[in-house]
């Protein structure tokens, strides 16, 4: 099962196994990872599952779509490597993925 590492803004790392097919957001919720709120439940309507993806992974995960980019405008301190974790679906290629959560979600 792919391992995903969630890193808090102050550097605390949590590595958990997330079944393929689930989103990185769902993986966080199921494992009680702090720093991901996911208020809208994954309908890409709230930007509270915002994460920063480490640069070396940006090309491996599926490209960002306009609707996600629009929603990221609403996120707390979005950067170039910002993504909504509800839109990153875990595959075997993503084994080892590291995402960092922002200082806060709202």
């Amino acid at each position: 099962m792919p391992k995903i590492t969630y890193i808090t803004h102050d550097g605390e790392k949590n590595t958990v196994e997330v079944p393929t097919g689930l989103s990185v957001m769902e993986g966080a919720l199921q494992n009680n990872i702090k720093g991901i709120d996911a208020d809208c439940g994954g309908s890409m309507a709230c930007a509270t599952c915002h994460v920063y993806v480490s640069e070396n992974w940006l090309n491996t995960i599926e490209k960002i779509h306009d609707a996600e980019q629009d929603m990221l405008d609403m996120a707390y301190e979005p950067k170039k490597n910002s993504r909504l974790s509800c839109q990153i679906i875990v595959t075997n290629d993503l084994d080892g993925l590291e995402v960092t959560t922002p200082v806060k979600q709202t």
Partner: protein
Amino acid sequence: MINTDAIIIGAGPTGLFAVHQLGIIGLKCEVIDNLDRAGGQCIELYPDKPIYDIPAIPECTGEELTNGLLKQIEPFKANFHLGQRVEEIKKENNLWVIKTNKGNFFSAPNVIIAGGVGSFEPRKLALKEAERFEDSQIFYSVTNKAIFQNKKISIFGGGDSALDWALELSKSNEITLIHRRMEFRGAAHTLNEIKQKEKEGKILIKTPYNLKSIEGAKTMTGIEIEHENGELEKIKTDYVLSFFGLIMKLGPITDWGLNIEKKTIPVDTETFQTNKQGIFAIGDICTYPGKLKLILSGFHEAALAARACFKNARPNETYRFEFTTASKSIHDRLGLKK
């Protein structure tokens, strides 16, 4: 004080359908919502996005669903108290008494919380200093546009609110429109108008920039913005308007003595009652084993909670289950002609 059979907190699809379910069994209700219109997340977050899983409606938008529900509950003439948030719930003589932030009081034997993920509030600027100037020089919505005359205004955001206000206020002010990336999202004709105003020198566009700092002690004199490449730029400004949409906050609900688990309220699935007798929770805000955050689940939950409300509102009457197809009393409540 308004007395009724049930108070519904939240005018999203689940709250609206609760009006219906209470109405057909002959119970009156009052609906309170923090937003200034009914529809909840459907109308606030995705009015134009199609929904495909409402039974018997192959496709409808959030707005269409809301309008359909409002039409469906018209016969019950429920009162809506919009633009106000419930602050307190207290028990007095076997009734729940509710107070809103506008100082209105309600009382009823039943309270149905259909509050979704909480109440909507504007998303605020990340900078701590922004708090000091909030409502004096920094605004998250425009309530009095008269104060903006011959001023320097910096507008943050890339969506319709930011664009529309940039256009509107550019008529009599100097506008700087700042957005974190090159692309704006907005109606095509709005974008064209913005480009036109930029050519005319009425709107200065700064992309891709973010707010870095706010300058000024007692009054804000300017801001500093940072380009994606790290370059800084100072802008003199009298006002900052920031439009980053709405967020949902559970708010005062956490102070009412209800059990809360991961921002949701556990309920008994027979009645949808919470740990407090006479307080029910339905829709996205409730949780139980197997809970799905679907609109259709909210409808089912509303139907069961309404029946449970009957016992509290009419303790001396016996509830009789009836079908809308056959019941004369339901037809009367729906105002159908004989």
